[in-house]
C-alpha cells in the first residue's frame, strides 16, 4: 500500500537521504534503523510531506502523493508521530485530540475516549496543558493525536528517545493492541529492542543510504548492524 521509490532529500549541499526505496503492505510493520545523521528522520518526514523531497516518488494506496503538503497527506491516512512530538503546548490534552479531527476528511475520527482507554495516564491529565505534561505523557499525547486521524499507516519517529524504560514498554504494549486493527507501522529507531518489539522487517540506514534489509531478529546478530551503528 506504501511504495517509496528512490526517495532523496537534500539540504544545500548536504544529502540527507540518497535514493531510498521500500514497500510496505497493509498491516505490515517495518523498522528504519541507524544512528543519528543516518537520515531516518529526513526520510520519514519527507514521506509524510513535512520535508521537501529533492527526488523520487511516494505512492500510497494507489495514489501518487509525491510533493503533496503534510496537511493533505495525513488525509490519505498516513499519520506521523514526529521525533520532537511537535505538540501544541498551550492546548489541553482534550483540545489537542479535538484539533487532530481536522485531518479526517471522509473518515470518522477516533473518539477521544478510545484514546484515553488506550492511554489511561492521558485521561487523568485531560484538562492540563500539553506543555506541562511529562516526557512520557507528551509522547502518548503525540501518538494519541496521530491515532485520532484514524490512520491506516502510523509512522513513529524515535519513540523511545529520552523516555524511561517503563514508559516505553507500556507505550509499546498499547501500540501492539491497536496493531490488530490492521494498522501498518513505520518505526524509526536507534534501539533495536524496541524495533524488534514492533516490527518484523527492518531497513538499516547509514549516511543517508539503506545498507541492510531483512528480519529484525537477524539484524540483531548481524555484523553489518554493528558497523552501521559503530560506523
Amino acid at each position, binding site marked *: 500500500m506504501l511504495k517509496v521509490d528512490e526517495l532523496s532529500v537534500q539540504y544545500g549541499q548536504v544529502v540527507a537521504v540518497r535514493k531510498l526505496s521500500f514497500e510496505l503492505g497493509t498491516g505490515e510493520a517495518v523498522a528504519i534503523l541507524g544512528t543519528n545523521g543516518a537520515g531516518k528522520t529526513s526520510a520519514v518526514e519527507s514521506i509524510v510531506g513535512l520535508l521537501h523531497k529533492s527526488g523520487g516518488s511516494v505512492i500510497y494506496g494507489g495514489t501518487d502523493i509525491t510533493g503533496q503538503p503534510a*496537511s493533505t497527506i495525513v488525509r490519505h491516512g498516513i499519520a506521523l508521530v514526529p521525533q520532537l512530538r511537535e505538540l501544541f*503546548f498551550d492546548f489541553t490534552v482534550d483540545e489537542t485530540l479535538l484539533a487532530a479531527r481536522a485531518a479526517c476528511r471522509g473518515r470518522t475520527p477516533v473518539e477521544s475516549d478510545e484514546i484515553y482507554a488506550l492511554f489511561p495516564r492521558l485521561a487523568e491529565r485531560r484538562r492540563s496543558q500539553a506543555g*506541562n505534561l511529562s516526557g512520557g505523557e507528551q509522547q502518548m499525547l503525540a501518538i494519541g*493525536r496521530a491515532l485520532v486521524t484514524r490512520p491506516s499507516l502510523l509512522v513513529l519517529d524515535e519513540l523511545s528517545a529520552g523516555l524511561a524504560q517503563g514508559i516505553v514498554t507500556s507505550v509499546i504494549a498499547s501500540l501492539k493492541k491497536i496493531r490488530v486493527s490492521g494498522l501498518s507501522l513505520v518505526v524509526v529507531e536507534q534501539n533495536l529492542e524496541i524495533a524488534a518489539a514492533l516490527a518484523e522487517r527492518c531497513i538499516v540506514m547509514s549516511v543517508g543510504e539503506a545498507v541492510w534489509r531483512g528480519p529484525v531478529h537477524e539484524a540483531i546478530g548481524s555484523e553489518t548492524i554493528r558497523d552501521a551503528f559503530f560506523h
Partner: protein
Amino acid sequence: MVEILDLLLGALKIGAIYALAASGFVVIHKATKTVNFAHGAFIMLGAYGAWATLTLLKWPYWVAYTAVPIVVGALAALVEFVILRPLRRADLFSVLIATVFLGVAMMELIRIVYEVELLSVPSVFSGVLAELPGEIFLTKETAWIGAGAIACAVAATLVFERLTLGRGMKAMASNYRGAQLCGYSVPVTYALAWFFGGVLAGLAGVFAAPPMGINPELATALIVPAFVAAVIGGFDSLKGVIVGGIILAIIETLAAAYISSAAKSAASFVLVFLFLLIRPEGLFTEGTRRHA
C-alpha cells in the same frame, strides 16, 4: 466622583472600539506572526463601507453590520494570499514594510474617491438611554457601542479559542509543523486568519463610524491604540487585548482630563513602556512554552 463616572462612560465607548480594533490585529499576529500595520486601513475601509451602505445605498443598518465586515475580510484574505504569502519567504522586514505601505496606499485610494474632510453616518440608536445622577447622560449610542463592540470582541475570542474554525489558527500559531500533521494547510489557515482579522477590522469600522466620523485618518487614529492595546494585553492574547483596549481608553481619558491632551498620548506610550518593562508578556500569558 460623578465626574469620574462621566469620564469612564466616555472611555467605555472608545475603549470598546479599541478592543475590537485590537482583537483583529491580534488574531492576525497570533495565527500568522505578522504585525499588520495595515489593520487601521482595513478598519477605515469598514467605516467607509458603512457610509456607502447607509448613505449611498440607503440600506438598513443590519446590512452594514453584516455585509461590510465580510467584504473587508475577503479583501484582507486577498492581500495575504496575493502579496504577503510570497513575501514571507523573503523575511519579516519586507512583510512588515509591505503592510505599512499597503495601509498608506489604501488611505490614498480612499482619499482619491472621497475628497471631503469628514463623512458621517447617523448612530444606530440616538437619544438618551438613561440620565444618571449629576447630569450624566448614558446615550443609547454609548450603550450600543460599548456593549456591542465588546460583545463582538468576546465572540471573536470564543470563536478563536473554542470553535473548530479557530482551532486551526490557534494550532498553527502554537506549532505549525504539528498543525500540518493534524491536517491544517498553511496557506489556507493563514488566509483564513486574515479573513477573520479583516472581518473584525470591518466590524470595528462600522462601530467606529458614527461616533468618530469617517475620514482616511481614522486608520492612523486606530492602528496606534490597537498596537498599544496589544502590548498591554499581550500580543497573542485575545482576552488580554480586550481588557487592554479598555484600560488604554481609561488611562487616555483620565490623563487628558487631569493633565493635558499632550499627556493623553504621552500617557499611553509611557504605559506601553512600563508594560514592556514589567510585563513584556502582557496581562495574560497564553500557553507555558517548555521544550522537553
